[in-house]
């Protein structure tokens, strides 16, 4: 449901900066269903790539072979992201707060972390410069927290409009228990849409801050047959492709 819900948010023709995992699945599902002209950019440098299977890393060969072009990583960040050419950037993290600020750096203090996470990667500048940011994360009280241990990338933080960030910040958080959108006045995320069969109480319980509910609370449609069929076929192709053993030139 998360993948389908995220895919539905993408409009045809948009330019999307994609990470591995659920964002990659959602973007490719959208491309294979309602948004055939979606442009997928992976930070490794592939522009307009059309993989037939989901990559396990941003460096997978098929991303290059099916791309409109492959450019150096510095150009992706300077001439595309920083230049404001990305419509939608996908982000996830270990922690999120109610303003959509994200932590993918450390749990615990920075100098003596309890858990050292992988770090920012492209997230800090994606959060700043993509026109819109879509956040995709499973909701638990441990990850949807009142206060981040570290702010890796910015959501609707105080002073965003004067900060030099080009983009408008996170537009949506797609979770496994519903969809959150920010209130225009405060930038604070509130429950915007439910999934069929998951009540608002379950969503509220999964979030570590008091989750408000937007007045126009919707319920998402169940995944349609074409959506499910496209997603299952994509996953089946992916599983088959990744079962092929690697042959080294020995």
């Amino acid at each position: 449901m998360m993948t389908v819900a995220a895919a539905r948010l993408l409009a045809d023709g948009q330019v999307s900066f994609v990470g591995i995992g659920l964002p990659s699945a959602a973007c490719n599902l959208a491309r294979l269903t309602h948004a055939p002209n979606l442009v997928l950019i992976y930070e490794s440098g592939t522009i307009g790539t059309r993989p037939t299977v989901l990559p396990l890393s941003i460096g997978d060969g098929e991303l290059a072979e099916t791309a409109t072009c492959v450019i150096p990583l510095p150009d992706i960040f300077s001439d595309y992201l920083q230049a404001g050419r990305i419509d939608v950037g996908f982000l996830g993290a270990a922690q999120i707060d109610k303003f959509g600020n994200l932590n993918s750096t450390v749990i615990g203090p920075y100098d003596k972390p309890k858990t050292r996470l992988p770090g920012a990667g492209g997230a800090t500048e994606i959060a700043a410069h993509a026109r819109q940011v879509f956040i995709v994360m499973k909701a638990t009280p441990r990850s949807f927290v009142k206060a981040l241990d570290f702010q890796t990338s910015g959501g609707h933080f105080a002073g965003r409009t004067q900060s030099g960030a080009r983009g408008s910040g996170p537009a949506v958080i797609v979770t496994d228990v519903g969809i959150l959108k920010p209130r225009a006045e405060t930038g604070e995320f509130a429950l915007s849409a439910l999934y069929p069969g998951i009540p608002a109480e379950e969503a509220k319980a999964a979030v570590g801050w008091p989750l408000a509910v937007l007045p126009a609370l919707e319920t998402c449609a169940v995944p349609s047959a074409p959506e499910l069929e496209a997603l299952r076929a994509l996953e089946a192709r992916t599983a088959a492709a990744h079962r092929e053993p690697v042959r080294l030139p020995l």
Partner: protein
Amino acid sequence: ARKLTFSWGGNPGVGSLHRLRDAVENAWPGPLEIDEHSHAAMAVAYRAGAARLPFGMLRGYIGTDLAKQNPRIRSVTCPYTAEKLATVPAVNPDVTILHAQRADKRGNVAIDGIVGAAREAALAAGKLLVTVETIVEELPPAMNNVVLPHFTVTAVSHCPGGAWPSYAHGHYARDNDFYLKWDVIARERGRFTAWIDRHVRGTADHRAFLASLQGQAA
């Protein structure tokens, strides 16, 4: 290693790098100094290094605590617009080591596929060592493809399979299984050390290293 300058340290598509975590969290096998950036900043740092400029600049480090933690992240003021732009020191590695597809006898190196910041990291280096899948008599004219000209290359070594467990475009695919296995191998110090002793310290060269892993990598 004494210090790590980086922007992301994980096992792509899998999770944490347990040895990095252990070094940062528990100083095992020794303390590791961290110089942490974002991808966009590392990109301009390599590009500045390749151009022998002392720093790179970007519209970056906005809405993040990174700049508070790393005193090497600074700023300049634009002499035209008075805007403040984030800066990072140029990265000029003493040695850059790359794996590429092909080199010729003169030392020209051709890279195909996803190049990342390989060209910038290569040209920023004091010395550039390249391992390649194949060495040919002469590379064909490359036109707009990526080539490191021989006078930028310090040494080339013929090392088939040198990208493993990653891939070499046009030669072999990424060994996704091994990335999953690595999560298990590297999780505990004992198992990791045993693996390194057996497959890295216990083999004579890269060919023997790869052969020792055939069929039983975990």
